[in-house]
């Protein structure tokens, strides 16, 4: 640290220089981000322009379309771009939505418990455990899913009658919505818990004390004042978790199943055992096709949809937080 105090230190790192340097750094980062978005959109454009809005709609088998796209253009034939991504989008919505819903409620209650009700020794243990869980790499969750959860669902929960009823169309082997949602929930809930509890902890103590002093019981105080004040943090945590869930590729590629099938809630209970493949794992599974120009455009189109939805989520999160800020800061 002695060198920091040397006479050179002052003039070399004057405020002006630091300001300029940091400014340049920020510009570079923003520029990089813009360049990335532009690249993705430009590469994706052929796929969107050939399909129009039908890109997002249902129609035919996605896997056959992807295969036809990849094989097209060999020997000078024309490129094929026809692609209807609905089964992939529907699978993303089901898996991400299901996991976020379950994780939101469980994480909220866990956070309230850790901050308000748990004895100190317990929250001292839970806190680091939750933070550790939030940083476990997703491949590990995927491995546990493949080795433990998938065979359990396939061999014990799915009945022979259910398998027979869809035989020849899809296999109910445990690679399913249920497995994907369960593991994804376990993966994102700790992230939510740690952000929620930070929010709950930063509620002004005076507000809670005031309520308690008026004779309101502890649960009601926490729920009506603590949780309500911490709503911006809850939105922020949910948005962050959603972004992670939507972009999750490796773990879902391992356990969600590998067919571009749209699970149908009208099928009844079987529905949660049906396999599907969300958008992000589709990119992982077809990564070797990047050398074919139409397949390249299609994969970049999927990427741009993911990028766009992530942007949309952070925007809505920001808007929601802004309108809630009047209840207090968090």
């Amino acid at each position, binding site marked *: 640290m002695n060198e920091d105090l040397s006479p050179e230190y002052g003039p070399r790192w004057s405020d002006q220089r630091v300001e300029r340097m940091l400014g340049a750094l920020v510009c570079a980062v923003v520029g990089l981000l813009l360049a990335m978005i532009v690249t993705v959109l430009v590469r994706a454009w052929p796929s969107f322009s050939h399909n129009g809005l039908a890109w997002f709609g249902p129609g035919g088998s996605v896997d056959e379309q992807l295969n036809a796209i990849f094989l097209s253009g060999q020997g000078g034939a024309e490129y094929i771009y026809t692609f209807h991504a609905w089964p992939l989008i529907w699978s993303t919505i089901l898996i991400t939505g299901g996991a976020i819903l379950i994780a939101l409620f469980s994480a909220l209650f866990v956070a309230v418990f850790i901050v308000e009700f748990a004895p100190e020794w317990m929250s001292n243990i839970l806190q680091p455990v939750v933070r550790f869980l939030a940083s476990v790499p997703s491949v590990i969750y995927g491995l546990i899913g493949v080795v433990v959860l998938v*065979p359990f669902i396939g*061999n014990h929960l799915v009945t022979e009658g259910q398998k027979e009823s869809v035989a020849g169309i899809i296999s109910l082997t445990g690679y399913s919505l249920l497995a994907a949602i369960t593991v994804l929930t376990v993966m994102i809930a700790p992230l939510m818990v740690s952000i929620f509890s930070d929010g709950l902890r930063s509620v002004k103590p005076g507000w809670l004390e005031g309520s308690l002093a008026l004779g309101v019981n502890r649960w009601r105080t926490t729920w009506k004042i603590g949780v309500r004040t911490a709503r911006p943090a809850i939105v922020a945590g949910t948005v962050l978790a959603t972004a992670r869930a939507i972009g999750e590729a490796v773990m879902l590629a391992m356990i969600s199943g590998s067919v571009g099938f749209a699970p149908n809630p009208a099928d009844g209970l079987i529905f949660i055992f049906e396999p599907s493949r969300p958008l992000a794992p589709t990119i992982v599974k077809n*990564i*070797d096709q990047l050398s074919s120009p139409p397949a390249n455009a299609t994969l970049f189109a999927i990427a741009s949809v993911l990028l766009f939805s992530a942007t949309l989520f952070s925007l809505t999160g920001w808007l929601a937080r802004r309108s809630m800020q009047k209840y207090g800061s968090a």
Partner: protein
Amino acid sequence: MRIKSLAIAVIALAGLAAPASAGAVTLIGSGSVAAQPVLQALFATYTKQVNPKVKFVYTANGGNAGVKDVQNGTSQFAGNARTPLPSDAGTTYIKMFMDGLCLDVNKKNPLKNITIQQAHDIYRGLITNWSQVAPGGLTTTIDPVGRDTNGGTYNFFLQAVLNNEPPASNVNALTADGLVQNAVKQDPNAIGYAGLAWQSGVKPLKVNGVPCAANKISVEPLKYPLSRYLFIVLPGDGSSSPPALKKFIDWMRLSPLAGEVISKAGGVPAFNKKS
């Protein structure tokens, strides 16, 4: 102080990397998962017993992906489990050794033999129940498991069993031979396919009455119906490859020692001289 420790760290890292460039060669390859166990054994033996200056880095990302790596120059060689396709332009295929693609079922499945036609019908979704394969066995729904399109094994299966028709939508496509093996091991109703080196914990079926075993693997004359060559893929016509790589390939194809390593690791030597 901070800058100094940073500099020390950089020098230390460079120091770690330095011995690799001192006269030694590192050969970078990727591709076939089916060939991986045998290749890794060959690499280890070559570095230990033949030429300690040659090191290998091999990423098993699937044979088709490996050929792409060779085409765009990120790999110096690739392993592949299928014969060349038109899309492989600009590469050379050299036969390394032979392998059999076994059709595997769970150990709880009493089935012993399967025909190519039955396998075709299962993977095309025409047969969906084990009772349609053989009477007196399981009466449950079949769970077919296969490889995804990254694998050369997928293409070999497509050509040898499916007559180049795509697999049905009920086939669960997994990313590696080990995952197929794992899925068959865990599911009593499953059927899968994987190379000879991936047969622990599962039960290989006889195909058209011929067992999937090393002594039956032969391409000319064809004995086991799903016998195949595993190939090493080089860029161009192979002449631009580093001499160290060429020497390794000759050793692997011809030396008796390599033959022993290949059969121990689950492959079948094709050209190696008997010791």
